């Protein structure tokens, strides 16, 4: 009697991608068995072009033979399809709207600021990008305090949508901290986030799939041949 959730699951991804990481954490949280396929060259990969002709990007979740694209979309899909296991999005419609809002913010502002620092061509550009990123961190610290209400995660007692959305950015943030000398997640300026990061890294759904920082550093150095990485 095939349940839809019993159909074969494959994930096309790339190990350095924070977006792929989100989907792996979600699948781990729900204990979904899946086959992970590392795509070395996404632009020329037949599978990627076949399953995501519109954007030609990973991650792509293939469930049965149906592709689901876009990391946050995939996380929501996993949450809605595998109903046993902890919920990723909260149940109350208002809390869900808040969670969705912050993950969009993380993608549109936080991630673009991280990129902004990495690709900055000179000191002036970098300073501006750093300032923007610090502003994002301050806002997320506030959000953490509001959402966690004294508990360990944005999602409360367990990791949720915002934890996954933002936690996947911790690797790139640490890489930037190493090169820029700026501590974006700071024990005094963002104490909530500082301790949350350790808890996130230690979570059983996260630990096995979080990329090694040294490897990420090397990857960044090769990818961004900009001043910050020299």
């Amino acid at each position, binding site marked *: 009697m095939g349940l839809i959730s019993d159909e074969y699951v494959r994930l096309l991804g790339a190990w350095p991608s924070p977006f792929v990481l989100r989907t792996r954490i979600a699948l781990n949280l729900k204990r979904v068995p899946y086959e992970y396929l590392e795509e070395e060259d996404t632009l020329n990969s037949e599978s990627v072009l076949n399953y995501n002709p519109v954007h030609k990007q990973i991650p792509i979740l293939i*469930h049965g033979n149906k592709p689901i694209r876009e990391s946050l979309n995939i996380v929501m899909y996993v949450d809605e399809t595998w109903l046993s296991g902890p919920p990723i999005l909260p149940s109350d419609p208002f809390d869900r709207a808040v969670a*969705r809002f912050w993950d969009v913010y993380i993608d549109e502002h936080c991630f673009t600021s991280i990129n902004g620092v990495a690709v900055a061509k000179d000191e002036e550009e970098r300073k501006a990008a750093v300032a923007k990123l610090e502003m994002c961190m301050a806002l997320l610290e506030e959000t953490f305090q509001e959402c966690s209400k004294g508990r360990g995660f944005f999602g409360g007692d367990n990791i949720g949508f915002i934890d996954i959305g933002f936690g996947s950015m911790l690797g790139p943030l640490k890489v930037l901290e190493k090169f820029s000398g700026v501590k974006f997640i700071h024990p005094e300026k963002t104490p909530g986030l500082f301790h949350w990061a350790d808890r996130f890294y230690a979570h059983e759904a996260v630990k096995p799939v979080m990329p090694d920082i040294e490897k990420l550093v090397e990857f960044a150095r090769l990818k961004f041949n900009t001043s910050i990485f020299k």
Partner: protein
Amino acid sequence: MGETEEVKLLGVWYSPYAIRPKIALRLKSVDYDYFEEDLFGSKSELLLKSNPVHKKVPVLIHNNKPILESLNIVEYIDERWNTSGPSILPSHPHDRAQARFWSAFVDDKWFPALKAAAITKSEEAKEKGMKEVEGGLLQLEEAFVSISKGKPFFGGEAIGFMDICLGSFVGILKAREKLKGEKLLDETKVPSLCKWADQFLSDDTVKNVVPEIDKVAEFLGELEVRAQLISDFKNLRSTFKSNGRVM
């Protein structure tokens, strides 16, 4: 029926994003108070208080709690009033993922390309941009045919999430046709979308919510004049400056 629901919507009449929650609220037969914001003038206290991060409309305020971002608001309305009216998002997780994917395509790729092509002064960039917009419409035509399976809307028999998302831009497309003679909804290229667009505009939940095409065309025309004036002023000022005069 218990508690009084206080629903407020902050918007501007010309914004396609503000149209979206209006349609959703009508689908669910929810009464609300509408507040028109003056974004060219000064933003209201209520707006600044409810959306301090982005200071943008639309904002839905339900029993004093603000919900932001148009599609987020639509999803909230669908979930909060889930026992009333049709489901806005499909029920099957895969179909929901499809709806979210295509709406992200419209908002993050397609409409920004149209906006950029409309604003740019470079003929080359405009041509390239419009090609991207037309290409996007072809992809949406394909998506519509596959998702609707012969029914009138992306959502099937009734208006759904993707209809609301893309439908909110139909007014602008028709207005641009009037203003510029630019036929993006071309029956020879995207016949199903053309039919869908007319069906969308004549639906009861949409009819009195989408502003009149003439009004939108007038507004777009005014925006263009304003943008031209600003650009002319900037050019004039830099000419004066380079001639050693301060303005």
